Structure formats: C-alpha cells, structure tokens
C-alpha cells in the first residue's frame, strides 16, 4: 500500500493525543486506592530511570563520555543543583571529554 503521508501524520497525531488526554480528562477525583496511588507515585521514577540507563552511554559518540556525564549529572543532582545546571553540566562533560578522547 502506498499511503498518503499527511494521513499517516494525522492518524499518529490523533492516537498520540487521545492517549494523553483521556486519563487527564476522565480522572477527576483524587484516587483513594492505596496500591494505585503508590503505583502512580513510583511510575515516573521507574520510567525515567529505565530511560536514562544505559541510554545515556549509547547517546554519545563515546561510551565513556556518556558514563562520565552520568556520574557528573548524578553528583550535581545529588547536591540539588537544579535542572538546567545538571543538564548543561552533562553536555559540557561530553563535549570536553570527546575533544580530549578524539
């Protein structure tokens, strides 16, 4: 089948939007069930951790620069340096290390 790209775009956009909006619009009250509340509390930490490692090592040109960014970012985050500082420190770490390693 040779589909129309604009229709592909509309289909995917519609699905993406519905997934995101349904829970937000349908769940109006605070959830009282302890398991569900606890589950939802842990979801973001689990997701973000799973997405960060080992992806951070594979995102860069060099595995070690990614690993160094993970260490630098973790230490600064531990010291609660804030989101922009941690993010830029990771970038600078990779940039400098790859200048040296290259």
């Amino acid at each position, binding site marked *: 089948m040779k589909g129309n790209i*604009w229709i592909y775009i509309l289909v995917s956009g519609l699905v993406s939007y519905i997934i995101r909006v349904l829970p937000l619009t349908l769940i109006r009250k605070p959830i009282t069930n302890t398991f569900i*509340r606890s*589950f939802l509390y842990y979801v*973001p*930490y*689990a997701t973000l951790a799973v997405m*960060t490692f080992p992806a951070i090592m594979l995102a860069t040109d060099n595995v070690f620069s990614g690993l160094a960014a*993970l260490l630098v970012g973790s230490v600064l*985050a531990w010291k609660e340096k804030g989101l922009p500082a941690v993010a830029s420190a990771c970038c600078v770490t*990779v940039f400098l290390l790859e200048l040296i390693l290259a």
Partner: protein
Amino acid sequence: MAEKISTVEFKEGFRDGIPIGLGYFAVSFALGIAMKNAGLTALQGFFMSLFNLASAGEYAGTQVILSNGTYLQMAMMTLVANARYLLMSCSLSQHIHPSTSTAHRMAIGYGVTDEIFGIEINRPLYTSPFYGYGAIAASALPWCIGTSFGIMMGNILPARIVSALSVALYGMFLAIIIPPARKDMAVMAVVVAGFLSSWILEITPWFSSISSGNRIILLTVVIASIAAIAKPVKEEHA
C-alpha cells in the same frame, strides 16, 4: 487557584523547558534525518512533530511510513510506542488541582512527554497548567524546527555538538529522579532497579529484540508495582 492565569508559573515552566528544548532540538534533528529517508518533506516533518510531540512514537511511525504500512498499523504502532504516556497522564491527573477545567486538561494533555511530565510532576502540589504551558512553549517549537532542520540539512551540524546536546535530556532526568531518591529510600531502590533492569534487558539476547518503547512500559509497570506493594505511600505523597 488552578484556573487563574499565572505568568509566574508560565515563566518558571518556560525556564525549566529551555534545557528540554535544547535536548529536543538535538534528538529531533536526528529524527528528521530518519524522516527524510522515509520521504517526508520538511513541512510534513514539522507537522509530524507538532501533532505527536513524541520521539519514540514518531520514530516508530516513520518506520511504518518507510515500509508502506497500513493506517491501522500506524495507529497501533503509535499506541504501543506511546503507551507510557497513558500512565503518565493518569499520574499527572493526580498532580493537578481536582477542579481544573476540561479545557485546561485537554491543553496540558498535549504536552505529556517524558520530559515535560517529569518536570511537571516535580512541582509541589498542585501543578499549575500554566507551568505546563510554559514548558510546552519553550520545548515544542525546537522539537518541530529541529525535525525540519534534520530533514533539510542532514549532517551540517557537527557530530560533536549533536553528541554533547544529546545528553541534555538524560541530565534532566537525573535532576528529577536523584534528589527524591536521596530523601526516600524506596525511590532510590526504584531508580537503581530501573538502571539495572534496563541495562540487563539491553544486553540480554532475547529481550534486546523488544522495542525500547515496550521495554520501558514493561519495566515501569513491573518495578512500580513491586514498589507499590513493598512500600505503599502514605497520604502526603502522590
């Protein structure tokens, strides 16, 4: 209250959205190169990114277009690649004021991405929709423009810059998950379990064939369920 227009919240969201936008630009640039191979024009790439605002979902969709898949396949692929946003949307519904209007819910829902959700959930209760709008304003446009640039310019941006920018996202994730992990041992356990399990699945032959989107869903559900049973949260959380 949740409904009141707040420029303070918007500005804070915008500020926190800037590193997200930087990371998005780098990622969407690479995504644009993939889209070019699937035959998308810069304009189509722009709208693909505007309508989806999802890295894994758009990449999966691009593969469907490339292989001349059906529209149903496109819908299913997008659903699977973006299923985690369903969980995040549930989670965010508990983090905005219960009286938040449907219009605000529909608008803020557009911006449920890994990163924007991450910073929204990081706000003290209740997260203002205007904080979300600020974050969306700072990050959605770089995402769309980056996609178009990737399609138009391919490899003009030096690889070293792209490589450095690509960790901005992960740095942000660390800034979100590490401070709470320091205060709550259960969160620490979840983070460590997330790192280890994701790494193990990445290098284990059979599991590594599962798409990264599905691995994220699987591990998230398993780890968060175990944590919820082992250490249920008390009132002040969630």
